[in-house]
């Protein structure tokens, strides 16, 4: 018999259905569920939840999605797609892989991309070692929930030396249902030695409905692998969004991630990275814009477990209206991780009286031959800059927007595709209007 789940979350796990799950997976789901009921709900006394309250989330009484949504046609995606962005495309609707909307075409040999549920149907053993391979101690409460409810998601597996010639776009589309629903997709990405790919993950919705996404992505980069990863969180402004991202990197691998956070009313993003081999590099860039009624909460946990690795974390924030943002970054350099190089920076622009930013960039260092730094700033638009633009005939609102876009541009420019950069810049510009 299952122990009861926490109040407000008791319907997050749907009843077991006919999905083809191997025994080992059922067992893992059960184990995760058991651990969940034993674990207390995150609380503001927990360091990781100091500034973020779960109250709003629990009040919604989300229930798990048990039926796939079949009524969508490819033209429903018209408003979602980015014109001019050429990519392999995988679409998940409400957390469920939608092959009829996905366009994969001719993938290079050795590249396998598909829905997790299908994969479990025909090749479950290959995922056995991959699932939970990246996590360990840093497993969060909601990642456990994701495991307990594990059902569908995306699997990307690139064999040795395979390079994806075009970006792979993962569209996570949410469509409002009659009652508040929670989707818990699980994405598994594995790049074997020397493989290279660009992954663009987009969280979007049709309409401004209320729902919750609790996604977990696990990425394993074997030696010399290179992954460029762009995450665009542009959920409905009524939505709740939770992400757990877990990355492990082998020798000489390279990860470059760009996180854009514009949507959701309440979003919590946990990025956990760990070096397993030397001379690897991890870059985490981020841009968040929190406006009225929004809370965007980022937690970074970067672990230098081995020597000679380099990491860079650079997050920038814009706060308007009654927007709130939290940045909690931690770089841990373990005892033997000599010659580690870590630089963390978090800069924020406060654009309104009611906005709030809570930032906490931490360094935890147990080795002596390291180069680590962090920097944080919170400020407003310099009046001199505004004056300069206004003296050239630009009105105040436009001048402010230009300056904000300039500030955000540093991160937006890291996006690999021109069409994508324009798309994001436009979305940011609209929000600042």
């Amino acid at each position, binding site marked *: 018999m299952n122990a009861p789940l926490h109040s407000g979350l008791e319907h997050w796990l749907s009843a077991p259905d006919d999905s083809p799950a191997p025994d080992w997976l059922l067992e893992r789901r059960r184990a995760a569920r058991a651990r969940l009921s034993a674990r207390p709900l995150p609380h503001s006394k927990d360091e990781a939840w100091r500034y973020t309250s779960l109250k709003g989330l629990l009040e919604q009484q989300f229930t798990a999605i048990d039926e796939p949504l079949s009524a969508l046609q490819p033209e429903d995606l018209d408003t979602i797609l980015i014109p001019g962005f050429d990519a392999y495309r995988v679409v998940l609707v409400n957390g469920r892989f939608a092959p009829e909307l996905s366009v994969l075409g001719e993938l290079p040999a050795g590249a396998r991309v598909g829905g997790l549920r299908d994969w479990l149907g025909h090749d479950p053993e290959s995922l056995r070692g991959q699932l939970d391979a990246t996590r360990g101690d840093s497993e969060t409460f909601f990642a456990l929930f994701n495991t307990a409810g594990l059902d569908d998601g995306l699997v990307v597996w690139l064999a040795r030396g395979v390079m994806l010639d075009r970006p792979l776009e993962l569209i996570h589309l949410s469509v409002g249902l009659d009652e508040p629903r929670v989707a818990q997709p699980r994405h598994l990405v594995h790049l074997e030695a020397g493989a290279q790919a660009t992954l663009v993950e987009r969280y979007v919705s049709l309409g401004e409905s209320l729902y919750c996404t609790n996604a977990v992505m696990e990425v394993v980069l074997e030696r010399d692998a290179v992954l460029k990863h762009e995450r665009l969180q542009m959920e409905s402004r009524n939505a709740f969004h939770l992400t757990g991202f877990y990355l492990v990197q082998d020798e000489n691998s390279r990860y470059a991630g760009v996180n854009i956070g514009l949507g959701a009313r309440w979003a919590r993003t946990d990025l956990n990275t760990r070096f397993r081999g030397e001379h690897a590099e991890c870059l985490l860039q981020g841009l968040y814009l929190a406006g009225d009624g929004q809370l965007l909460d980022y937690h970074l946990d970067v672990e230098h477990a081995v020597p000679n690795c380099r990491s860079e974390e650079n997050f920038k924030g814009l706060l308007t209206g009654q927007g709130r943002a939290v940045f909690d970054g931690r770089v841990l350099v373990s005892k033997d991780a000599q010659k580690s190089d870590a630089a963390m920076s978090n800069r924020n622009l406060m654009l309104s009286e009611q906005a709030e930013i809570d930032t906490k960039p931490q360094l935890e260092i147990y080795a002596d031959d*390291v180069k680590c730094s962090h920097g944080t700033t919170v400020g407003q638009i310099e009046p001199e800059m505004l004056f300069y633009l206004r003296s050239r005939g630009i009105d105040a609102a436009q001048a402010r927007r230009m300056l904000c876009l300039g500030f955000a541009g540093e991160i937006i420019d890291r996006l690999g595709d021109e069409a994508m950069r324009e798309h994001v810049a436009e979305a940011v510009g609209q929000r600042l209007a």
Partner: protein
Amino acid sequence: MTGAPAVEDIVKSEYEHGFTTEIESDTLPPGLDEEVVRAISKRKGEPEFMTEQRLKAYRHWLTMREPEWAAVDYPKIDFQSISYYSAPKRPEDMPKSLDEIDPALLETYNKLGIPIEEQKALAGIAVDAVFDSVSVATTFRATLAEAGVIFCSISEALHEYPELVKPYLGTVVPYTDNFYACLNAAVFSDGTFVYVPKGVRCPMELSTYFRINARNTGQFERTLIVAEAGSYVSYLEGCTAPQRDENQLHAAVVELIAMEDAEIKYSTVQNWYPGDAEGRGGIYNFVTKRGDCRGARSKISWTQVETGSAITWKYPSCILRGDGSIGEFYSVAVTKGRQQADTGTKMIHIGKNTSSTIVSKGISAGEGSQTYRGLVRIGQRAEGARNHTQCDSLLIGDRCAANTVPYIEVKNPSAKMEHEATTSKISDDQLFYCRSRGLTEEDAVSMIVNGFCKEVFNELPMEFAVEAQKLLSISLEGAVG
């Protein structure tokens, strides 16, 4: 370049100031209950309201739990095994001048190289020497009295100026504040009271030298400094302690109150016994220090050089309430051997155009562990608030640890705050440069480290700066080889 053998040297180096002066102590037996609290209050002949306040604090303390969030690791403290009161034997005939002071005590100071007479003559410092729990010497009273400055022990102040103490005591650090502050409010033994009247610039630097002496005695100091409008005072606090085996708890509370245009400068050099090579013995330093900038344009400045104690848990803070008030925190902290320090500051910006500066330099050697933990909070009404924070860590040896945990909370858009932190070791290039110019490795390291800390030392009063530099050199002797 390896630091290993040299690091062992410092770890093994004997604590210079380790000796116990034989003075008979009038000590309460170990243990804590309401009777003990009453006994302390009675022995000190306190007014009724103090006894009540102590009991209130004690009852609240019973409901509190020891904080566990700090990055320090130590065996649980048995609060019933501590004696909460120890006074030098002759409280009834307190010395009127230095000549009357117990020669053994004077000798103690001489051993420390800080003879009171000399300081009186050379440095122009009035010394309120706290030997264990009761003030036994106060000098320069007359000069200060002339200026209208009150500088005395807090128990004396409670007798003579209750009207000055009562409205302020416990208003900056209320007894409900935290576990150790609450304990202190219940059992505080003695401490210092400074009152600087309106418009007075205190004619000299005020100084208290603490010594923890009787074995098994917790030291619960309480300091209260009130600077009235337009006044200025600079206060120096320095400490050393005799060598001993058992861990000693020190839970002091310091409250500073600065009214309109007033300035308080509070400097600390802390060199308590850090424990032996295995981390045995050594002082637990759990201190609550807070300043309240109540008036407009007031200023409170904390400067600390922390080289001692087995465990340090200390966050001198400023509440910037008055418009245009200024808070400063300059800190050098050294941990070596098995020392652990979790220290930093809090700057709470409430008033308009308030500004704060934080400069923290941490040096971690041997198996020392150090955490900078700081909070900068800029409230919604703190229009034009400004903060600059810099915390740098220097690592010496591959078994030490340095953590930086800054909390930054901003609720006002006109606020400007910057925080930067770096962690590094002494670079081989720097060492090579110095050595190629004929400096020994040790001198080179001492020079580089002193340069690293210069920003903080510059804030110390002259006499203290010299002592601090010497202390740092001694602390790091042979730390890098």
